[in-house]
């Protein structure tokens, strides 16, 4: 055991004493942290952890398949909403018909994540209120993240593929692996005679949960599908709403139309090859995605980037935040019916920032800029001047314009104020993060609560507000842009000269065995990467805790008893990117 391991276990031994004997034990595998909980006591343990120890915010749940061992794990990360580091615990089960107690009764935020684990790994959650598949469709056979499952165009388990060199003649995968021969269907399933009935499940779930019958009055509630075309320019997303007149009684979001099994691709890739794929999660904020992933891997390799690289990372991540919030505000206004004028004001500023990204990283959106232990290219002093000109003159001026233009606008206020209210209790229970959580009166910002990189050096305020409505979310985002500008100014002032990379970047990163959870405050919320390495060039498990996906669990509660026209606005105020939701 390493020294750090021994130290943490000394602390944790006493933690174990808080619980009855036999409930939990230390996870003492090399490179692993946290505790292993006895399956039968999971619910009670989690309840005590939340109620007695204050871990009220469930950050992430994911599963790991240790094939060929007969072992699967469900991994939980919980934190305190008051800040500080968290606790990780695991439940172990076999691979045949694995079953774990659901934690939805304690944390509603577990709902989507447990459905995702059932969908992708095939671990069943007992007492889950809505145990349907979430990302793949109803006729899907198997659970794609299991290690023995192969995809239609399967070539090899790990990249690089042998067919590329030294005898590499290109063949289209469609030609060698024709569609139809390699697709498995659920038994009994025949694509020729099949009648689609998947939606019945959604409708049934919706009716079961919300439908109310009025004894005296014969009222019919009806179901309306909003989507799956772009209901409000956010991507392919569908809301199934149960309506009573124009009032929303219940709502189920349906997504997965853009699902490409990012995590499976990630497990086929080498660690470095994954970097450009993270760009494509939330394609508005590629540099933040890079940062989260780099931090998670750097935790394992224990590489620390040089000072200059840290500053560059912060500057880039904050520019990304500015971009994201400009886009989020712009599209929120689009959803409100202010078609494209405010949006284009936001996009104008974004364009100027993207010019800088293009010059520094080589690409406007798919930046692929961070490397483990540094960044790919240095930022020249000209570019720093350009950034400085933006943040010290143009952006503040433009924000003032935004303020004048929007904040006082009567139409915006009447459409946003009091719409889609989310109480702080609900927000925490639903594991909501980012501007959505902070607008609900919980000033939880990972940059402050559990600082990463060099954020502890900067002076900034955590933007938050108390009403929890759409208008507050808009204000919080505006304020966050101002705070980002503040951080960038400080970073530009302090950025030292020096190297931008520790050592030479290896294309085969050597990553020691173990697990790590790297989380950052991405513009949309908490972006977490859970990585398990078994010393091979490819990660054994690569999981993305997507803020967009988990923030969507609040959509239902925010839309209830609102008018249907407001559902679009509320969705806009969550600020989702389907590339990240569907993964």
């Amino acid at each position, binding site marked *: 055991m390493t020294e750090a391991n021994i130290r943490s276990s000394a602390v944790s031994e006493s933690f174990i004493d808080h619980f009855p004997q036999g409930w939990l034990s230390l996870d003492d595998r090399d490179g692993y942290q946290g505790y292993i909980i006895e399956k039968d006591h999971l619910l009670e343990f989690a309840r005590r952890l939340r109620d007695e120890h204050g871990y009220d915010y469930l950050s992430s749940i994911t599963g790991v398949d240790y094939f060929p061992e007969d072992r699967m794990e469900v991994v939980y990360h919980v934190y305190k909403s008051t800040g500080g580091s968290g606790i990780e615990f695991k439940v172990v089960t076999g691979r045949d018909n694995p079953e774990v107690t659901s934690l939805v009764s304690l944390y509603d935020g577990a709902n989507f994540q447990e459905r995702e684990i059932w969908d992708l790994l095939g671990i069943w959650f007992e007492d889950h209120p809505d145990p349907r598949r979430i990302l793949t469709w109803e006729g899907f056979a198997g659970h794609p993240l299991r290690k023995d499952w192969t995809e239609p165009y399967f070539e090899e388990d790990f*990249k*690089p*593929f042998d*067919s*590329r*060199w*030294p*005898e*590499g*003649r*290109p063949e*289209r995968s469609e030609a060698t692996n024709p569609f139809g021969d390699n697709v498995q269907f659920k038994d009994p399933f025949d694509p020729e005679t099949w009648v689609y009935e998947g939606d019945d499940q959604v409708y049934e779930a919706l009716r079961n949960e919300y439908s109310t019958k009025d004894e005296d009055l014969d009222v019919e509630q009806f179901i309306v599908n909003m989507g799956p075309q772009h209901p409000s320019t956010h991507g392919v997303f569908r809301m199934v709403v149960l309506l009573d007149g124009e009032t929303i009684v219940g709502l189920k979001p349906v997504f997965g139309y853009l699902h490409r099994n990012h995590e499976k691709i990630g497990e086929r*890739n080498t660690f*470095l*090859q*994954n*970097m*450009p*794929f993270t760009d*494509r999660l939330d394609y508005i904020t590629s540099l933040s995605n890079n940062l989260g992933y780099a931090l998670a891997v750097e935790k394992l390799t224990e590489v620390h980037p040089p000072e200059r690289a840290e500053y560059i990372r912060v500057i880039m991540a904050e520019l990304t935040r500015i971009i994201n919030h400009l886009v989020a505000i712009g599209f929120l206004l689009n959803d409100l019916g202010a078609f494209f*004028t405010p949006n284009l*004001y936001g996009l*104008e500023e974004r*364009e*100027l920032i993207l*010019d800088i990204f*293009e*010059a*520094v*990283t*080589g*690409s406007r959106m*798919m930046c*692929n800029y961070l490397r483990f232990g540094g960044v*790919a*290219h240095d930022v020249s002093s000209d570019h720093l001047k*350009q950034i400085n*000109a*933006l943040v010290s*003159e*143009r952006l503040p001026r433009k924000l003032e*314009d935004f303020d*004048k*233009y*929007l*904040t*006082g*606008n*009567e*139409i*915006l*206020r009447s459409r946003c104020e009091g719409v889609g209210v989310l109480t702080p209790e609900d927000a925490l229970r639903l594991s909501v993060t980012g501007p959505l959580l902070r607008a609900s009166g919980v000033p939880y910002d990972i940059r402050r609560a559990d600082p990463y990189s060099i954020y502890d050096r900067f002076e900034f305020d955590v933007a938050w507000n108390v009403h929890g409505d759409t208008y507050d979310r808009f204000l919080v985002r505006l304020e966050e842009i101002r705070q980002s500008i503040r951080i960038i100014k400080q970073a530009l002032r302090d950025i030292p000269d020096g190297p931008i990379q520790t050592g030479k*970047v290896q*294309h085969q990163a050597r990553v020691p065995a173990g697990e790590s959870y790297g989380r950052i405050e991405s513009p949309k919320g908490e972006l977490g990467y859970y990585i398990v390495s078994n010393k091979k060039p490819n990660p054994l498990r690569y999981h993305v805790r997507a803020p967009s996906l988990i923030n969507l669990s609040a959509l239902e509660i925010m839309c209830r008893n609102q008018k249907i026209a407001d559902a679009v606005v509320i969705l806009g105020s969550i600020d989702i990117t389907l590339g990240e939701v569907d993964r």
Partner: protein
Amino acid sequence: MIGKGILQGLGVTFRHFMDTYLEDIRAGKKRYRTADGIAARRSADTRGIFTIQYPEEKMPVPELFRYVPILLYEEDENGEKEYRCTACGICSKVCPPQCIWIVRTVNPETGRPLPNPEEFYVDIDICMNCGFCEEFCPFDAIKMDHDYELSNYNRFENHIIDLEGLGRPISYYAGIKPGIFAEEEAARAQKKAEKAAKAEKKDK
């Protein structure tokens, strides 16, 4: 006062609208279709609408800009192409979507591999423009091109590019990325000098 916010907002829009015309009048014909005009519209103090009128105008791309890979070759007096690529395969190994295929040349007599590619393919449908091949190539042989107008009518015929199609003379590369090219050439010359010095030492 109700309506104040709306009026203020309209004011912002109106100013933005007028700014465009004022800029046009102030800058005159220079504003459009000139390099200066494009640069001015991309600077931080640009006002009004600053759309680049593609395809009549094009944004100049920065040196680091990357699109799809090309292979560099040197031309000797007879016009014979000598590719820098040694078929080491690093690019095809590091490529995240695995879009590079290489056939290594083999000496037919000895059966030993020779340091140049017999065939080289890039499938630009799969390429994700990440630039890893360029970054990790130890011979400065594979580079990312600046040409982004690659659309054509038949993806089955035209989107897998072979050695011939990928090849570009060094002068082309020096033209699109002059700064980076100069740096790389300096590094190459230094490496060569070091190698020569080492060899000399060994000879002695």
